[in-house]
C-alpha cells in the first residue's frame, strides 16, 4: 500500500483495513456463526503473489460478463494477449446467471490493454512488470475502467492474472464484483527465474497433465518449467538423430515425440513460461543404454555414461542438436549430480583409458562435464549444472555456468562469491517430494540468505521448487505440488519486505488458504494447506478456507 505523501486517503483506508483484521480473524474461527458469513470473502481481496505496490479503496464495482477488450501499443495486437483474454474470461465468469441483462448497467464494461513493445521473444529477464488500474469512469476519473499497461506481452499476462484474482462472484447479486476499488497496482517480480521442476522419467506424465501443471504455474506467476525429461529409469523423449534412445521408455505409449515437446514449449510460451530442458550427464543416465548398450561401461555396470568413448559425446551432441530446434530458452541444464565413478575405475577398458590420460575418476568427471558444456556452448546455450560440479571443480567450470543449488544451504553464497550465477533449490526447504516440509518452512526460506553484498545478490537468478517423480505420477503430482509451490512463488515474486512484514504467519496463512481455494475452483487439485504432511486428504469435513 504505497501512499503518495501528500494524499492521506490511502493511509486512512489502510488503517481502516487494518482495524477490520482482528474481526475477520475472529470470525474465521467460528464454525457456524451467521455473521461470519458476512466477512468471508466479502470485504477482503487476496492477491497471490502479493504485488510490489498497490493501493485500494472501499468501492464495490460490478463487472460486465460481456467485458470487451481494447488493445493498443505496438504489442497490443498480439495473439498471446487475445488468447489470454479469452482464457481469463472463462475463469472470471464461471457461474452462469439467468438474471436479465437488460437495463443492468455495469460499472466496468471494458478492459484496456496497452503493450508497448511488439517483441514477443520470451527469455530470461524479459520485462514482466505491469500496472493495473481499476476504476469506475466518472467525471473525476480520467482512467476509465480497467487498464493494464505493460512493456511486454508477458507483463500484460501477469496483469491479467492479477485482475482475475481481484474479481469475485457475488452470490447475492449473482454478478462478478471487484471489491475495494479503485485499485492502483504497480508490480514486477523480485527474481527473474521462478521455476518448477517436473520429472517425467521416474513416471511418465501425459501431455495433458503437463499442460495442467503449466496452466496452474501461470496462476502463481511462476515462469520457468525445468523439464527433467530423462533419468536412469526411463528415456521417454524422441531423438531423431539417435532413434533407438527412446527404446529406454517404459513402454511405447509412454513417450514424447519431438512435436509433443514443441507443443509443450508453445503452450508454455502462451502463458509466459519458459521451458528449460535437462539432459543429466554423466550420471542418472542408465536408460540411455537400452537403445545403445555401448554407452554403458559394461552390461553389469551401467552408470555413469562411458567417458572413454567418443561415441558417448557424439550421442550427447546429437541429442542437444535435436533439442536445439525445440527449446529456444537460452539456458540448458546438463545435470552433473550424484556421479559415482566406480564403474569407470573398475571396468577394464575405461580404467585403461583413465590411465592413458592420467586421470582419476574425479578428473574424468570434470572432463566429462566440461566437454558436455562445450557442446552446449557451441549451440549457443548457457549451461546450468547441479552444485556438485561447482563443489568439486569450481575453478574449471565454464564461467558462464549457472550453479543449481540443491544439497543444502550456504551454496549460493559461495557460488556468487566466485562470480557464478546461482539458482536456489535447497532440498531441505524446496524439494516438494519431501512430504514433511510444511508450507511455512517453504515460505520462509530465502534464496538470498547469507548474501549481504548487493552486487553479489544480483547473481542469484532466483529459485525453483522441485517435484521429483519417484512417488509422484499423474494421479498425485498436482496435489503434491500445490499449495507449497505457491509459497515458493510468492517468495520469488514479492518484495522481501512486504512478504515478511507484520504478523505474517497469520496473514500469509489466510492468504494462502484463500489462494489454495482459488486453485481448486480453477480445477487444480491443491491439497489442504494446514496438513503437516503434503498431499494428504483433509482430516475431516470443513470449509476449504480452514483446511
Amino acid at each position, binding site marked *: 500500500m504505497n501512499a503518495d505523501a501528500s494524499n492521506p486517503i490511502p493511509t486512512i483506508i489502510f488503517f481502516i483495513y487494518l482495524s477490520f483484521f482482528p474481526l475477520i480473524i475472529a470470525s474465521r474461527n467460528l464454525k457456524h456463526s451467521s455473521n461470519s458469513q458476512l466477512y*468471508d*470473502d*466479502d470485504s477482503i481481496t487476496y492477491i497471490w503473489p502479493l504485488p510490489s505496490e498497490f493501493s485500494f479503496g472501499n468501492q464495490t464495482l460490478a463487472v460486465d460478463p460481456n467485458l470487451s477488450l481494447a488493445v493498443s501499443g505496438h504489442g497490443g495486437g498480439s495473439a498471446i494477449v487475445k488468447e489470454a483474454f479469452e482464457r481469463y474470461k472463462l475463469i472470471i465468469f464461471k457461474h*452462469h446467471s439467468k438474471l436479465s441483462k437488460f437495463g443492468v448497467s455495469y460499472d466496468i464494461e471494458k478492459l484496456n490493454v496497452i503493450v508497448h513493445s511488439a517483441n514477443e521473444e520470451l527469455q530470461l529477464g524479459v520485462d514482466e512488470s505491469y500496472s493495473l488500474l481499476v476504476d469506475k469512469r466518472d467525471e473525476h476519473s480520467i482512467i476509465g475502467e480497467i487498464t493494464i499497461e505493460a512493456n511486454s506481452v508477458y507483463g500484460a499476462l501477469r496483469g491479467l492474472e492479477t485482475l482475475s484474482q481481484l474479481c469475485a462472484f457475488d*452470490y447475492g447479486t449473482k454478478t462478478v464484483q471487484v471489491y475495494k476499488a479503485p485499485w492502483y497496482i504497480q508490480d514486477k517480480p523480485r527474481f527473474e527465474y521462478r521455476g518448477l521442476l517436473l520429472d517425467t522419467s521416474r513416471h511418465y506424465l501425459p501431455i495433458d497433465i503437463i499442460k495442467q501443471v503449466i496452466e496452474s504455474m501461470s496462476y502463481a506467476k511462476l515462469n520457468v518449467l525445468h523439464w527433467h525429461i530423462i533419468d536412469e529409469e526411463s528415456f521417454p523423449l524422441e531423438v531423431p538423430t539417435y532413434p533407438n534412445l527412446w527404446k529406454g521408455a517404459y513402454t511405447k505409449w509412454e513417450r514424447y515425440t519431438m512435436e509433443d515437446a514443441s507443443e509443450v514449449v508453445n503452450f508454455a510460451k502462451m502463458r509466459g513460461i519458459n521451458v528449460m530442458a535437462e539432459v543429466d550427464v554423466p550420471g542418472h543416465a542408465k536408460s540411455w543404454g537400452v537403445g545403445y548398450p555401448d554407452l554403458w561401461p559394461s552390461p553389469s555396470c551401467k552408470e555413469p555414461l562411458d567417458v572413454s568413448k567418443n561415441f558417448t559425446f557424439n550421442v550427447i551432441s546429437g541429442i542437444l542438436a535435436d533439442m536445439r530446434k525445440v527449446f529456444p530458452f537460452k539456458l540448458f541444464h546438463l545435470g552433473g549430480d550424484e556421479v559415482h565413478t566406480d564403474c569407470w575405475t573398475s571396468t577394464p577398458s575405461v580404467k585403461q583409458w583413465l590411465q592413458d590420460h592420467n586421470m582419476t575418476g574425479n578428473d574424468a568427471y570434470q572432463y566429462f562435464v566440461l566437454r558436455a558444456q562445450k557442446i552446449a556452448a557451441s549451440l549457443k546455450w548457457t549451461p546450468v549444472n547441479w552444485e556438485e560440479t561447482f563443489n568439486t571443480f569450481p575453478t574449471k567450470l565454464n564461467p558462464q555456468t549457472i550453479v543449481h543449488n540443491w544439497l543444502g544451504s550456504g551454496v549460493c553464497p559461495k557460488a556468487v562469491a566466485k562470480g557464478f550465477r546461482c539458482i536456489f533449490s535447497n532440498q531441505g526447504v524446496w524439494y516438494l517430494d519431501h512430504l514433511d516440509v510444511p508450507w511455512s518452512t517453504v515460505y520462509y526460506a530465502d534464496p538470498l540468505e547469507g548474501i549481504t553484498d548487493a552486487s553479489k545478490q544480483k547473481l542469484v537468478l532466483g529459485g525453483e521448487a522441485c517435484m521429483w517423480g519417484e512417488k509422484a505420477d499423474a494421479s498425485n503430482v498436482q496435489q503434491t505440488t500445490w499449495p507449497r509451490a505457491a509459497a515458493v512463488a510468492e517468495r520469488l515474486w514479492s518484495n522481501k519486505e512486504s512478504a515478511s512484514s507484520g504478523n505474517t504467519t497469520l496473514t500469509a496463512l489466510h492468504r494462502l488458504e484463500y489462494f489454495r481455494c482459488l486453485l481448486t475452483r480453477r480445477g487444480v*487439485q*491443491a491439497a489442504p494447506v494446514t496438513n503437516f504432511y503434503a498431499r494428504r486428504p483433509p482430516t*475431516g469435513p470443513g470449509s476449504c478456507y480452514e483446511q
Partner: protein
Amino acid sequence: MGQKGVQSIFLGLLLYVLVISAAADVKHLNIWPMPKQVNHGHGSLYLGNDFELKTDGSKYPDSSGILKDGFLRIIDVVKATHVIDANFSHFNPSRLLKGIHIVISSPSDELQHGIDESYKLNIPAHGTLLYAHIEAQTIYGALHGLQTFSQVCHFNITTRAIVVHQVPWTIVDQPRFPYRGLLIDTSRHYQPLLMIKKVIDSMSYAKLNVLHWHIVDSQSFPLEIPSYPKLWDGAYSISERYTIEDAAEIVSYAQRRGINVLAEIDVPGHALSWGIGYPSLWPSTDCKEPLDVSNEFTFNLIDGILSDFSKIFKYKFIHLGGDEVNSSKISISSNVHFLGCRIVIFICSYVCMWGEHIDASDIEQTIWPRAAAAAERLWTPYNNLPKDPAQVAGRLAHFRCLLNQRGVAAAPLAGPGRAAPEEPGSCHMQ
C-alpha cells in the same frame, strides 16, 4: 560387450514387445467396460485429417448439438495424447477411415431412467470411402458408441497418426443395469463446479450414467433454495455455494453426456446445517438433529425444497436419505406424492464417494480407478465378466493409463485407494 550382449538385449526387447502386444488380443481387450458382444480382425486403418461426422438417414435432428459436441469431444480426447504429424500422402488411401456415420432411430433427446442405451459399432476393414458405423435407438446409445470408438483409436508412434487396429470391428453392446451410479458428497467438502464437471467427464469414459448428488448434510448446506433463501446460510462460507443456475448447469452438462443427476435431500437425519438459516427446524438449540417432526414448518420447507428441485432436476427419482436417524419412524411419503416424484427404495448399485476426507484435491484419485471396476460390473453381462483376476488387472491398468492420458488423476492399482505410486515405473505396471 559385443555380439552376445547385443543379441540378448534384442531378444529381451522382442519378448517385451510381444508381451505388450499380446495385451491387445481377444481375452485382453482394452475396452472398458467390456462390451456385450465383440468381434474383430487383424487389419489397421488410420484416421484422416478431416475425420468427419455423417448423419444421413438418422432421425435425430440434434437441435441442441449434443451429438456434434459429443463427436468433437471424442476427437479431441483421441488427439490429445500426442501431436499428429503424419505425412498423409504416404499412406495407403484404401486404409483411410474418413469418418463416422451415425444413425439414430429416435428423434427424442429425453434422458430418463431406463432409456435405450444400446448401440452397434461397425468398423470395416477395406473398401472405398470407409466410414465407421454407429447405430443406436437414442442419442445416448450413440454417445456410448462414440466412447467405445475412442477406446479403439491409438496414436501410432511410427506413423504419427491415429490408427484403429484389429479391424473389422463388430460390436453389439448394451448395459446390464439401467442404473450405474456414482455418489458425490458436496456437503462435507465443497466441490467447485469445475471439479464436478471433471468428475462427470470421467464418468462418461466408464459409461456410468447416474450422478447421485448428495448435496447437503449436517456439516454444510451449499445449495440455493429460492423458496427458503436463508437455507444456504448453512454453507461453510459465502463462496462455497451453488446457485440455482450452477445446479442447472451441472444437470445440463451431465445430460449432454448421457448422465442423469439424482439429487439427494437427506431427511430427517444428517440435516443439522438446515437450522443455521431457520433455527426453528431444530428440535432445540442443544439438540439439532433430526429435523423437528412436530413442526409443520419442517414439512412446508421440505415441500419448498422439492418444488424448487423439480424445476432443476429432471430425473424421475429423488433421493430422500432417511439414513442414520436416531429416533422413531417418520413417514414423509404422503407429503411428497403430489409432486409426481416416484420414491423408490433402492438397492445400492453404485459407488459412494463420501466426502469426509475427500475435497477438490483428492476426489479424482479416490474415485478412479476403483469406480471403473464397479462400472464394468454394472455394464457388462455377467457371462462376459472376466473370471481371471490376472486378465482384469491388465485391462484395468490399461484403462487407468487411458484415464491419465485424458488428464484424469486416476491412482495406481497397487495398494489401498488413492495411494501414491511406491516407486518409479511404467503406468501399466503400477
